[in-house]
């Protein structure tokens, strides 16, 4: 005997009877629901005496027969009757998804929301910057409030802990630039200019920029996630009630750490890139290290180094600020932490690159080319 649910339509004297058999359970329903939808004549009775098992879904189908066709349900066990009664009590209409407006107004709504979000985020960032300046002013006025331990701890996690990855990245970038430069310039017999390329692009742009991107991904995201989860756990509120200002205790040390560590890391990254480029020049172009260094000193002006070192703390500040700002924006649920962490990294990298473009124009217009 098959366990699959089935039913037959019986033409009685005046009444049309549906006789169900098998198991009226979700697993065994098969095409029964579809066939029940397509009944051409309303049955007046449903006989479930031959049904040997029933679950809430089966009970629901019977309830619908009763509701839509007025069919009387007969022959059911106590359990079946109880289930049918239970689901009939729970019969209500509901949507699966929230109501949506039409595509046109939805698009307008989205554009509006995105614009407002961008503006309020910019405004929030400015307010946050102001609060940070006030907190910094407070610390300058009362140096005893300065949290040395927190700052040093952040120095370690932003600076020392990222030495490995920043160094490796820069070393490899040095090799890549040198290799690409060597291949392209060899076509003109100008391999020796590879050194100009490495020295100038590294010190001026790439070392600091790549370090900033790495720190945004490493520390900026960490700031947002740490502060965000503290916010969710009401730790920030607890700090406020105890009288510890979160700006001074959490934000200032982090922003200070990125601002001060970025120039150091940027310098270190530049040195590593120069070492990488130098090794490739030695290996691929037979330029020995002493010549490489000598040539580097001749072709790279000191201003290139200044350009990099002036940009670095600004980038660091931006990274720390956006990381902490996004962390503070977390509200509601855990999902927010992820969203804000992503926003922190995207915003930091975006702002860093925009500022870098401004710096490029600025430095060339003051003659540091």
């Amino acid at each position, binding site marked *: 005997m098959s366990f699959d649910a089935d039913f037959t339509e019986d033409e009685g004297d005046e009444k049309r009877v549906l006789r169900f058999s098998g198991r009226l359970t979700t697993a065994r329903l098969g095409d029964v629901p579809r066939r029940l939808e397509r009944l051409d004549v309303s049955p007046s009775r449903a006989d479930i005496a031959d049904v040997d098992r029933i679950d*809430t879904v089966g009970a629901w189908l019977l309830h*619908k027969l009763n509701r839509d066709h007025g069919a009387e349900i007969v022959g059911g066990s106590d359990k079946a009757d109880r289930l049918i009664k239970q689901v009939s*009590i*729970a019969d*209500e209409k*509901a*949507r*699966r*998804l929230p109501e949506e407006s039409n595509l046109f107004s939805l698009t307008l709504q989205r554009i509006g929301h995105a614009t407002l979000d961008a503006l309020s985020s910019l405004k929030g960032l400015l307010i946050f910057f102001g609060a940070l300046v006030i907190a910094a002013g407070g610390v300058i006025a009362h140096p005893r409030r300065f949290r040395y331990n927190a700052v040093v701890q952040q120095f370690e996690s932003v600076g020392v802990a990222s030495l490995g990855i920043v160094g490796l990245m820069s070393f490899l970038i040095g090799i890549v630039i040198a290799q690409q430069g060597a291949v392209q310039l060899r076509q003109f017999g100008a391999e020796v200019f590879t050194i100009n390329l490495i020295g100038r692009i590294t010190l001026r742009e790439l070392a600091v920029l790549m370090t900033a991107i790495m720190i945004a991904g490493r520390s900026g995201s960490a700031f947002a996630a740490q502060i965000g989860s503290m916010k969710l756990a009401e730790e920030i509120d607890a700090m406020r009630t105890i009288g510890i200002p979160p700006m001074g205790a959490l934000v200032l040390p982090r922003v200070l750490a990125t601002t001060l560590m970025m120039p150091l890391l940027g310098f270190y990254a530049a040195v590593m890139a120069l070492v990488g480029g130098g090794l490739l020049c030695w290996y691929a172009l037979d330029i020995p290290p002493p010549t490489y260094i000598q040539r580097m000193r001749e072709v790279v002006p000191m201003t290139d180094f200044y350009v990099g070192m002036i940009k670095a703390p600004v980038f660091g500040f931006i990274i720390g600020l956006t990381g902490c700002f996004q962390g503070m924006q977390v509200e509601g*649920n855990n999902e927010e932490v992820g969203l804000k962490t992503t926003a922190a990294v995207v915003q930091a990298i975006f702002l860093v690159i925009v500022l870098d473009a401004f710096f490029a124009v600025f430095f060339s217009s003051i003659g540091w080319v």
Partner: protein
Amino acid sequence: MSDEPIISVRGLRNSFGDSVVHENLDLDVYEGEILGVVGGSGTGKSVLMRSIIGLQEPDAGEITVFGERIDQATAAQNLDIRRRWGVLFQNGALFSTLTVSENVQAPLREFYRNLDQDLLDEIATFKIVMSGLPADAAPKYPSELSGGMRKRAGLARSLALDPVLLFLDEPTAGLDPIGAAAFDELIVELKQTLGLTVFLITHDLDTLHAICDRVAVLADRKVIASGTIEELLALDHPWIQEYFNGPRGRAAAPKAA
């Protein structure tokens, strides 16, 4: 209540690093009963539940559910067992990107791919209403619901596949007394109409008195006693005495007792 246990745990051992949570733990849950599991914080109530439902691999011991060894079951058997139980996690564990209705439909879609969308919607709606939520909660996202509503939505999802066995992890924690009492009633009602067996972790003494057929007490890394509350009270264990006869225990006990 039948004599054959639906869940049977023998010699269970669980440890995290150096700290041993369970040692030689035995437990039986019989068909058709509501078993309350109590124990102090950190006695491994949730770990026990996770071991039974296969989320935590025990160091040693045998766990049998529906007569199948959980640890030795094949993938197909495992899937079949999973279809027959429902689990309500402490905070509902609803999928945050799906609406309540879609949450309830998720297990149905996974196991029964031939159901029509209309029928799925109807099934989800009556499960949601049966769990004590208003029907207009169906198209809402979990983040729009209160804690109590989220638990009910989680319950609706755990009932989606018409399970015969239901695991509840502190279902009334964080609910106000009225909400908690309503939840207790709901569980009894569902147990009676759907013929459920319930494995219930709780700290709520009112729940224990109101709905549990038997109570298992976890302490000293094992189930030190199980039975009705009266049977437990007759025992001379200090923790049990303090638990049920402390000020809160006495307040929760039925007045006639």
